[in-house]
């Protein structure tokens, strides 16, 4: 286990200095600060107020930013290291492929989770100072959803990285995957439903299989939302499975997909040429 933790630590420290990480962390921290400064926490819109309103906006932002950020940075850094022969040197040391791969995964997870947790803690801190009511249950479940959603996209990112031979191809596939997943949230699904382009059950199944949509339904389900906020497909699923059912499904599904793609990535990494 020692080499795995050494690799995780060094990968974390290396990412911590990189410009993309500073940008990534700044986006989340500024988002929270801006939302507070703009007075959104004092507003009451569609029944949400205070910190819950802030979290709702934070969810929408995370739903778009998080997948693309994780996918692009993961595929770029991993594929770049292989293209630039960094792997050729570092993997010439006596390290098992399992320790190297899972060490990288652990390092990346920390890199992704730390800014998210810090921004949530910042929101919490500001909320406490201002004397607002802290929605502890929502905060805990939302943190778990964010963590599992990051795991999903990290898994997809690692799988794309080790399965492609060049940075450009890896980046292209990552962008395609992101666009596809974003397109298949409520906006496109509503169109399919209206046009009757596919059976309703297939459309609902698509929604449940799309990790972006799954995260979105579960995260908004934390707030007991109305139809105009969540969209018709999500509203139907929420009505069918209930809030607890959807949140439990999302946590299990996102965790499963993340681990599945990470494991598939590891199998490819072990079986193919490393360079």
């Amino acid at each position, binding site marked *: 286990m020692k080499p795995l933790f050494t690799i995780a630590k060094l990968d974390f420290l*290396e990412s911590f200095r*990189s410009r993309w990480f500073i940008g990534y962390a700044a986006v989340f921290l500024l988002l929270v600060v801006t939302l507070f400064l703009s007075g959104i926490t004092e507003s009451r819109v569609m029944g949400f107020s205070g910190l819950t309103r802030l979290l709702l906006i934070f969810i929408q932002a995370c739903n778009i930013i998080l997948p693309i950020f994780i996918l692009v940075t993961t595929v770029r850094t991993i594929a770049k290291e292989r293209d630039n*022969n960094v792997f050729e040197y570092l993997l010439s040391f*006596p390290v098992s492929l399992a320790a190297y791969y899972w060490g990288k995964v652990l390092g990346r997870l920390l890199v992704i989770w730390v800014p998210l947790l810090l921004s949530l803690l910042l929101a919490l801190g500001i909320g406490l100072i201002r004397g607002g009511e802290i929605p502890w249950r929502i905060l805990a479940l939302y943190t778990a959803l964010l963590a599992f959603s990051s795991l999903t996209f990290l898994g997809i990112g690692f799988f794309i990285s080790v399965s492609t031979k060049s940075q450009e191809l890896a980046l292209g596939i990552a962008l395609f995957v992101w666009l596809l997943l974003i397109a298949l949230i409520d906006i496109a699904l509503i169109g399919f439903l209206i046009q009757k382009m596919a059976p309703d059950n297939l459309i609902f199944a698509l929604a449940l299989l799309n990790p972006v949509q799954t995260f979105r339904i579960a995260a908004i389900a934390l707030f007991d939302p109305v139809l105009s906020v969540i969209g018709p497909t999500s509203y139907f699923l929420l009505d069918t499975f209930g809030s607890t059912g959807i949140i439990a499904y999302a946590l299990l599904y996102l965790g499963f997909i993340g681990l599945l793609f990470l494991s598939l990535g590891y199998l490819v990494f072990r079986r193919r040429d490393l360079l």
Partner: protein
Amino acid sequence: MITIQNLDKTLSRQKILSGITLDIADGEKVLFLGHNGAGKTTLIRCLLGEYRPDCGKIFVGNHPLAGERVEALRKIAFVPQLPPPIRFTLNELFEYAAKIGHCSIDKIKENSLYFGLDADAHKHKAFHKLSGGMKQKILISIAFSRDAEVFVFDEPTANLDSVGRDRFRELIGAPEMRRKTILFISHRLEELAKVVTRIIELDLGKVVRDEPV
């Protein structure tokens, strides 16, 4: 020390290595020659476990590379032709080498000083931001600080100044290196003439010359 049996390797549907069989004994100093594209780098990458052979086996000591990668690579120290753009700081690179490669950071720094490079003065700098010569000196220092039995040098002096080249020759000629196996890939035959004990020439992925010096 190194046994390669019937090694074949294909890359992008092109056969790069074909039926390579070699036995390299303890203490041999082997120079690999060949034109660009002859298969030298591919052979080294197979030896380092970075390319999976189509068929054939590689043993380092008694360890089959396919099944005992870590044990086999523990015996090998490698210096690439072009230092890669590793984004670790020197401190982090030394930590990686020490913890994964089982060597001492003090020994790496001592070797760097021998090459006229004070590693402590650059410890917080990113490795990829150092000059080509400095990077090469660091990688050679790391290799010599490892308790390896096989040293693989791919054009090791390409980026070194004349002092660095002298130091490198001194290190590979040191008494403690007599029992070590060294594999060189180099076009600078005259530089290594005094050290090399065997020459292996590759052409179109096959051994076309294998003779003692």
